[in-house]
């Protein structure tokens, strides 16, 4: 049986397989078909409202301060371009045609039969991006990629491959969002990351979905010797149901995985978000940091560190802030040391804003609402090492443009 046939067969068997976490989403109520969209020559040729909406998730149609761009509208890749030498940005379909070796990466970091959503991405595949920094290539300006969902009731099933070859440096910002008018849809996104020896990759993902949209990203990464992968995830806008639990495997000596998540659940939002890092070789390191806020929604914040080698170090941190009178944050930090000599720790804290902090800021002239907002923004303002200033700024902007936060 060919590899493709084998993958298809495994996916078929997993079609009805419920995910380990999160509410089950009936996929039958969605369609995977959407009319094709024409390619555009520049992002400025996209409808203005799409351009403006993408800006909110860090995707800038002017392409200033960016070294490449990718834009997928529903199931169509309408734009892909890079100005950075030795960095490729292609639709994954195009890349699979171009590179025979790419099939060796296909479903390598994520299991095709993990659940019904990975199966859906395999069987009802609707494109995705391929971003690759060749060996030694270093780009400080980020590549931007946008997954835009505009078709009513669409299941956008994308599969992305990101490869940072040996000694390269790659920074990516991915913005995912739905058109304002869309009321029903689901995004299933498989992303497989391969961070090769000595490479550094930062991946900043900003999500802005609608209150009736379900989201099921499925990510896996393989981090080799002396390589660093920094993953930042920001979701501060309403979403019906978001569940993701990316797995980072540090397989080479001195590999580092850093995961930062900023979540804000408004009333009606359900988020089950976490990160798992498996430390498989000597001197591997991991930080899994989450800041979560509920203003009526429910957040399950998971973290798991698994130490499979004696000489590894990791830290989990989950801080949750409860605003308003209802809403829930359930922090689930897990440490799994399978061998002696691992050094892993966690801290978790969930509570409301201390009144003394609000009154302190009020003595400087801020109203109670403004003081609360300042504290909330400060709570989400985490310093992330290794991320270019432009990306740090995008994260800050996402925080500052979240309306109603703290009120």
């Amino acid at each position, binding site marked *: 049986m060919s590899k493709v046939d084998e993958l298809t067969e495994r996916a078929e068997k997993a079609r009805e397989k419920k995910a380990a976490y999160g509410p089950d989403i009936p996929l039958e109520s969605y369609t995977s078909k959407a009319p094709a969209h024409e390619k555009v020559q520049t992002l400025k040729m996209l409808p203005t409202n799409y351009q403006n909406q993408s800006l909110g998730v860090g995707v800038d149609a002017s392409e200033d301060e960016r070294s490449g761009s990718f834009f997928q509208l529903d199931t169509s890749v309408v734009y892909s371009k890079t100005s950075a030498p030795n960095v490729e940005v292609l639709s994954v379909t195009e890349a699979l045609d171009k590179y025979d070796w790419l099939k060796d990466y296909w479903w390598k970091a994520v299991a095709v039969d993990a659940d019904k959503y990975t199966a859906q991405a395999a069987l009802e595949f609707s494109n995705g991006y391929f971003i690759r920094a060749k060996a030694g290539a270093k780009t400080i300006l980020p590549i931007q990629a946008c997954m835009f969902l505009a078709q009513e009731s669409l299941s956008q099933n994308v599969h992305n491959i990101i490869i940072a070859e040996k000694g390269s440096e790659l920074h990516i910002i991915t913005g995912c969002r739905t058109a304002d008018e869309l009321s029903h849809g689901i995004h299933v996104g498989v992303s497989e990351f391969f961070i090769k020896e000595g490479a550094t990759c930062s991946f900043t993902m900003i999500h802005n979905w609608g209150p009736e949209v379900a989201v099921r990203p499925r990510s896996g990464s393989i981090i080799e010797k002396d390589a660093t992968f920094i993953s930042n995830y920001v979701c501060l806008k309403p979403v019906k149901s978001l569940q993701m639990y990316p797995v980072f495997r540090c397989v080479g000596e001195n590999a580092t995985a850093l995961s930062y998540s900023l979540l804000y659940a408004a009333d009606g939002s359900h988020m089950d978000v976490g990160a798992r890092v498996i430390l498989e070789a000597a001197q591997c390191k991991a930080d899994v940091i989450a800041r979560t806020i509920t203003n009526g929604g429910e957040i399950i914040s998971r973290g798991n560190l698994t130490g499979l080698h004696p000489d590894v170090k990791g830290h989990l941190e989950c801080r949750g802030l409860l605003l308003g009178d209802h809403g829930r944050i359930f922090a689930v930090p897990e440490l799994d040391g399978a061998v002696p000599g691992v050094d892993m720790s966690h801290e978790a804290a969930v509570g409301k804003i201390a009144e003394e902090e609000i009154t*302190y*800021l009020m*003595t*400087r002239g801020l109203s109670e609402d403004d003081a609360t907002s300042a504290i909330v923004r*400060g709570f989400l303002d985490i310093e992330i090492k290794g991320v270019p200033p432009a990306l740090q700024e995008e994260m800050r902007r996402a925080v500052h443009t979240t309306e109603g936060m703290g009120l």
Partner: protein
Amino acid sequence: MLDIQNLHVAVDGKSILKGLDLSINEGETHALFGQNGSGKTTLVLTIMGFPGYRVTEGRILFKKEDITHLPINERARLGIGLSFQHPPAIHGVKLKDLTEIAAQHGNSAFKIEEVAETIHIPPDFLTRDVNLGFSGGEVKRTELLQLLAQNPDLVLLDEPDSGVDLENIALVGETINKLLDRDKRSRERHKAGLIITHAGGILKIVQADKAHVLVDGQIACSGNPGELLNDICELGYEECVKCPR
């Protein structure tokens, strides 16, 4: 400028201030002495409008306006500023940002970096989370920085010299003098101040016009700051209770 009349305040249902009267005129600085638990901090937090400090009787007038039930920020905007004894640390809120906020409602031409340097606050401090990991002395100096930006007409200082090392005590005192117009001739002074001090050390640098001793929620006596301090040092607070003055 400040006129407190028959002030009764309860905290968590417990009566702390019991009929306190106090007037501070424009240009005057008063010192407030008292044992731990006598109600000194309760008084300044009540003047500032902290919600846990419930005024059960009496009223507070500021610039002739009754502010007894105004929220904190409105009192700040009217011109009352407070230097905390133990301010909270706030993650992610930078000292510079907070000082800018204070300046927006006060001295809009305030040059943060320049002033910070004069009170020995290094530039990297400005980008730190406010009060997080600051030493006692650093807290006091950064509180003063914010007040200089806020430029209040009535300055409330709760133990401004506690935790300040000897090297910086003169600097803190001089800064307070500036805040309170004490560096100007008496007729040019417009600011008013109330300084809570347990040990009175700061008064060697900041010349207060008048002092009061707070005993069990009431002002037990008032007078010359130096003389009162000497009496307290010699005889202890217990004598203030008995003193007929």
